[in-house]
């Protein structure tokens, strides 16, 4: 929790608040935020304890993995990336998807969305933290992390796509932290945010959101030796699926907020998101079909991974169940999103969200990262299924991300409901 406050503090320091007494108000804001973040009902305590417990299990599994080596994962020289990088890819999409609230709010001036857009930004912050952690746990030598820091280390920029990804992901994190931090602090002070301090960043964040998932796709599709990834459709597919999983995740978060607090709003913002999901999901499925047609109809060697993924080959069929369940979930979710019930506040909508999130998580992970390695570049079929260590660490990362998100959302909600406000500054407006 103190980490969050610290991050907010780091964000605001260079801002040079145009008020007298910012040095007085700001620490008070942080102190009160800490109070809000750590105070709540028994349900809240139970939830936070559960998340902390899972995060601890993950942290311990990671520490053991660092000590004993990545032999504790089920990765091999044939399948050299696994669950961690799969989850990384999905989380980047989740972060990029948050932009689908920003666009209606700022490009189409949707007034109500304006009030809720901060939720999407909070999701983006948590998702970026999760994707960064997913990469860190995938490193064989996390102690040499400093080699990745530009100038101090030896950054292979602009050649290596991974360096681009590091830049865009960290940039996106900073932009979103700034926007969230600034808007919250201004609301806390009871002042109208000065557009100069956040609108340019909002527009930057729109471009940046596209860049994070595009560059992440370039990580894969830039590799000529992996025909399954080496397709120009990869980045557009990543974006389309992100614009489903992101809004779907936000819809769930919005539901939780409405159920657990007094913060209410009209059904309109959610409907806007559902319209976006409908279009994005159809485009996503269309591109998937186009990809599969090219692979299977041509029937060339390029289809080897797709054959293994969808039907199994050379006696291996480890991913067949995964991909078909993903396809079924994606189709079922899409159909549900198109029913009128999805526009109502109800369980159908939540089910549709969950189906699409799970479907895309598999499609982007087990269905995309793993088959890139099977068969290997020399056509050997070595299968992969995550080990217990990998599941524990991944669960820990999710628990940590949701923990951060819970705290952010509580702060946002408290500020919005004026439970967290600066009593001195209130009448200044």
């Amino acid at each position, binding site marked *: 929790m103190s980490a969050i406050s610290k991050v907010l503090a780091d964000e605001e320091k260079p801002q040079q608040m145009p008020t007298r007494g910012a040095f007085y108000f700001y620490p008070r804001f942080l102190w009160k935020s800490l109070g809000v973040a750590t105070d709540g009902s028994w349900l809240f305590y139970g939830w936070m304890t559960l998340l902390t417990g899972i995060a*601890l299990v993950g942290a311990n599994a990671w520490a053991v993995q660092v000590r004993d*080596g990545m032999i504790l994962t089920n990765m091999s*020289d044939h399948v050299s990336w696994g669950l961690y990088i799969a989850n990384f890819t999905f989380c980047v999409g989740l972060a990029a998807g948050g932009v689908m609230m920003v666009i209606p709010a700022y490009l189409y001036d949707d007034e109500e969305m304006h009030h809720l857009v901060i939720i999407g930004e909070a999701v983006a912050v948590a998702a970026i933290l999760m994707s960064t952690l997913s990469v860190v746990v*995938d*490193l064989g*030598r996390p102690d040499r992390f400093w080699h990745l820091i530009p100038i101090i280390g*030896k950054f292979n920029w602009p050649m290596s796509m*991974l360096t681009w990804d590091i830049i865009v992901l960290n940039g996106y994190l900073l932009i979103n932290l700034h926007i969230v931090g600034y808007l919250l602090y201004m609301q806390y002070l009871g002042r109208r945010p000065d557009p100069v301090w956040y609108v340019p960043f909002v527009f930057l964040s729109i471009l940046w959101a596209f860049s994070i998932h595009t560059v992440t796709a370039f990580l894969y599709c830039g590799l000529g*030796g992996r025909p399954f990834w080496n397709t120009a459709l990869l980045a557009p597919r990543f974006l389309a699926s992100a614009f489903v999983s992101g809004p779907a995740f936000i819809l769930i978060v919005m539901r939780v907020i409405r159920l657990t607090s007094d913060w209410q709003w009209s059904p309109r913002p959610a409907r806007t998101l559902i319209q976006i999901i409908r279009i994005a999901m159809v485009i996503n499925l269309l591109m998937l079909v186009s990809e599969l047609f090219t692979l299977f109809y041509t029937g060339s060697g390029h289809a080897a991974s797709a054959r293994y993924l969808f039907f199994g080959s050379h006696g291996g069929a480890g991913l067949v169940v995964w991909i078909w369940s993903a396809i079924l979930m994606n189709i079922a979710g899409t159909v549900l999103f198109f029913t009128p019930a999805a526009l109502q506040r109800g369980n159908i909508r939540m089910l549709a969200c969950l189906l699409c999130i799970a479907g895309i998580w598999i499609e982007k992970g087990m269905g995309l990262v793993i088959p890139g390695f099977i068969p290997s570049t020399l056509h050997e079929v070595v299968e992969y299924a995550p080990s217990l260590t990998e599941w524990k660490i991944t669960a820990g990362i999710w628990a940590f991300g949701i923990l951060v998100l819970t705290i952010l959302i509580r702060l946002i909600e408290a500020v919005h409901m004026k439970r967290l406000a600066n009593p001195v500054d209130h009448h200044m407006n």
Partner: protein
Amino acid sequence: MGLAAWATALQPLTEWAGDLSVDEFLQKHYRELKPEEKQAIFRRLEAECREAHGVNVKISDPQPNEGVQFAYALNLSICIGCRKCAEACTIENNHDRKTNNSYIRVFEMEMGGIDFEKGDATYEHPVPQPGKFYMPVQCQQCENAPCVTACPIQATWQEKDGIVVVDYNWCIGCRYCEAACPYHARRFNWEKPTIPAEVINPDQGYLSNRIRPQGVMEKCTFCLHRTREGRMPACLEACPTGARVFGNMLDPQSEIRWVIENKRTFVLKEELNTKPRFYYFFDE
């Protein structure tokens, strides 16, 4: 209480960090080291090896020779698939003996085409089998190496004589190079290599066959600790049929030059434009 829980969960990290020295943590990239810094590092690594295995090793650092561009060629007509090359690689390069790792994988291929999809690298029967030919694959030392481009921290690069090397003390183990390599030439140290003291090869190169740390990448270096000093790679010396040809392709008198000029050679996955320095050919 919260802090105590985190400390306990992360306890294994302190056990691991016990093996790391501050010098190693702060060590600069190989190409930024001054000669005296290099010497200090080599002596430190030798001492660490003495401590860990009780073996006196010599870590050298032979530099690329002027006017040398190494190339390798392999005669597929006479390779019998005995895997002596792969075994010699394991011994020479101080590979992990739990897995008997090797930089060379030998594929048993079906006559009538060069189709890896019909190949098998896990055969366990007498060789050569009728209707089959054998295709050893190792690092192709590409002139246009995708692994070098991929590496985010320049931990792997191409030397002047064409050999692609890894600084094992700089690599962070992200394995992007392993994903980028079209030839399955790279290996990762999934755990600390196990190697009995009596089989350790004491003649070690800093950029080649020294015992690798846990969590970093490694690859074939054309045995640079041998070849830069005028010897042949271990895999070539071990080959009982003389299928392997190695040398400086800039030397007009060399056998490798003769093969490249006179045989109908081919390289693997030419369409990827990686420009391998590893040529395959058949006798007429």
